């Protein structure tokens, strides 16, 4: 595996330091403001709507492996949806093509129902692994949408070409659909076929946004400071290329680092 060169190492430590500083200052009770993310705000409404209609909800955690950040972020959202479902007394159906997610999701959903005092509503059969291929899973999901008459659909995680196969049937059945993905090529399809879409890094921010834990919110603010640093580097790079290729070549060495 590739190793960090000096520049990357400094940048990594700097970003980590900023994030940790913000986490600890948030834990110390500092006020934190984060902007509204419409897609995440509407999760509670979607759960409520399904409950009013007396129909279950469907959660899909993407196509990627358990080790991917997008999937981990999706599980954070799953915890919130399951908790809201348990609070309102509704059923949540979870489908995945990743077998490793079955016990993890089962544990998360069970924990949510137990913590809300509704363990009887949890059914391990609602955590399903219908197929290991994404197109077959899409077909199985369509079947569940029609058979179980699911009223709210949540698609969070990394997606491939089957994103539209998963979401378009939901539009036809009239379900409220919220999606969030870090696969930016799939974002337009979600925007076209879902009611609300959480775009790329907003997905990573989802669990922090939903739990409102100071520790998690602090990390979001730290991440935004990292963005300011990146922005400054972009501006410097733009100036360097405007001045000339010679300046750019030295800037490139300073930022990108040499061969090692």
């Amino acid at each position, binding site marked *: 595996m590739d190793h960090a*060169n000096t520049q990357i190492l400094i940048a990594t430590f700097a*970003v980590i330091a900023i*994030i940790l500083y913000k986490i600890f200052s948030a834990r110390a009770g500092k006020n934190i403001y984060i902007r509204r993310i419409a897609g995440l705000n509407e999760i509670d409404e979607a759960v409520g709507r399904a409950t009013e209609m007396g129909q279950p909800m469907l959660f899909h955690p993407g196509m990627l492996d358990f080790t991917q950040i997008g999937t981990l972020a999706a599980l954070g959202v799953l*915890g919130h949806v399951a908790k809201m479902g348990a609070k309102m007394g509704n059923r949540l159906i979870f489908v995945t093509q990743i077998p490793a997610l079955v*016990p993890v999701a089962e544990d998360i959903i069970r924990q949510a129902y137990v913590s809300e005092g509704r363990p009887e509503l949890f059914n391990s059969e609602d955590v399903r692994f219908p197929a290991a291929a994404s*197109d077959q899973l899409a077909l199985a999901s369509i079947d569940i949408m029609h058979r179980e008459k699911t009223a709210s659909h949540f698609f969070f995680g990394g997606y491939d070409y089957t994103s539209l196969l998963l979401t378009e049937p939901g539009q036809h059945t009239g379900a409220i659909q919220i999606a969030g993905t870090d696969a*930016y090529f799939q974002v337009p399809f979600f925007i076209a076929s879902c009611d609300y879409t959480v775009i790329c890094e907003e997905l990573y921010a989802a669990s922090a946004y939903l739990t409102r834990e100071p*520790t998690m919110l602090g990390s979001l603010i730290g991440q935004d400071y990292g963005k300011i640093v990146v922005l400054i580097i972009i501006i410097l790079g733009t100036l360097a290329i405007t001045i000339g290729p010679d300046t750019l070549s030295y800037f*490139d*060495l300073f930022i990108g680092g040499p061969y090692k």
Partner: protein
Amino acid sequence: MWKKQLIVIVTFLSGLYFFLEFAVPPTIPWKTTSGVVVSKPGDKQLQINRVRKTASATITEQTIVKRVPSGGGTPEPVPSDAVKPGDRVVITTETGREISGIVMPRSSPRRIFVGTLTPNSEQVSIDANMLIRRLRSGGSAEEVKLDALEIPQNTSGSLDWINVGPTTYLSSYLTKVTDFFIVLGAMAWGMGLLSLWLVHSSNIRKRRPEWYTSVFFFIAVGFGIIAGLGFGRTSPGVKYTWDWWTYQINDVVFWQMIRPMGSTIFSLLTFYLASAAYRSFKAKSREAILMMLSALIVMLGQISLHMWITSASTWLLYIVNTAAIRGMMFGMMLGGIAVGLRMWLSLERGAFFDREL
């Protein structure tokens, strides 16, 4: 409670390993020798020559980079990003200045530093704990064995630039650690199959609507297992063995059933695309109007209606779109670090831990 504490400890230790493996150099820096390989005096010895910087050249579109083949000869033109440290090059800059020498590790795709061999050379003994890393084009290094190194007949051509030193051992265990994920993944398949078993057996037991499809599931699993046994049995000679029929089932299941069914599912996408596009192109808001107009320009740009439409389409696709995607990528990378850090230090809440530990 002990289960959560165990998860915290295991997560922290494994995260620490991967972080250290990334951050710590693969060889001990102060004991590492860096330079070009000039000869192999013994079976376990290398003669490494140091290189002194003499000049540098800015790489532009007009720059011509020629590489001297290994062992010497006529320099051949190569793309500037294809040269690697140790290559002997002749660079003609955009002003016509000619620079020649050995490419140094300090180089980048936009500026190449060159140098000459110095009289300082070092003989390095290659023990079992020594790691040889050969520098490649593009900035990274690959681990190589002593035999894989190119030992030149003379030093007038391109050479191998290596960093050699005692290993820090962290990278040596990387394969074993990542193999652990494969083992976990294999166990997970069993859990997935168990989940399917529970759902379908319960369907049959409780005689739920369309329970007979669950019976078909068990039949399909049986066929799938047999078909899996027949995988790859197409080489000559295998045909007449007793288990030839497993290949025939493999052929029927994978090639004559699953593949056409997969294509059928994929073809559904066309209709969904049409209905999604119809909805998206309704000018409901300012953003929708912008999206509709840009999509219209991009579509018209594909049919060469007029030069300016093609230019506008290309500009939208390659300038505006790239800028937007890069913006997203920067955000995602930083978001990835933040999520990774929260996971590593078990600061994540909600789904994983409902309270601070």
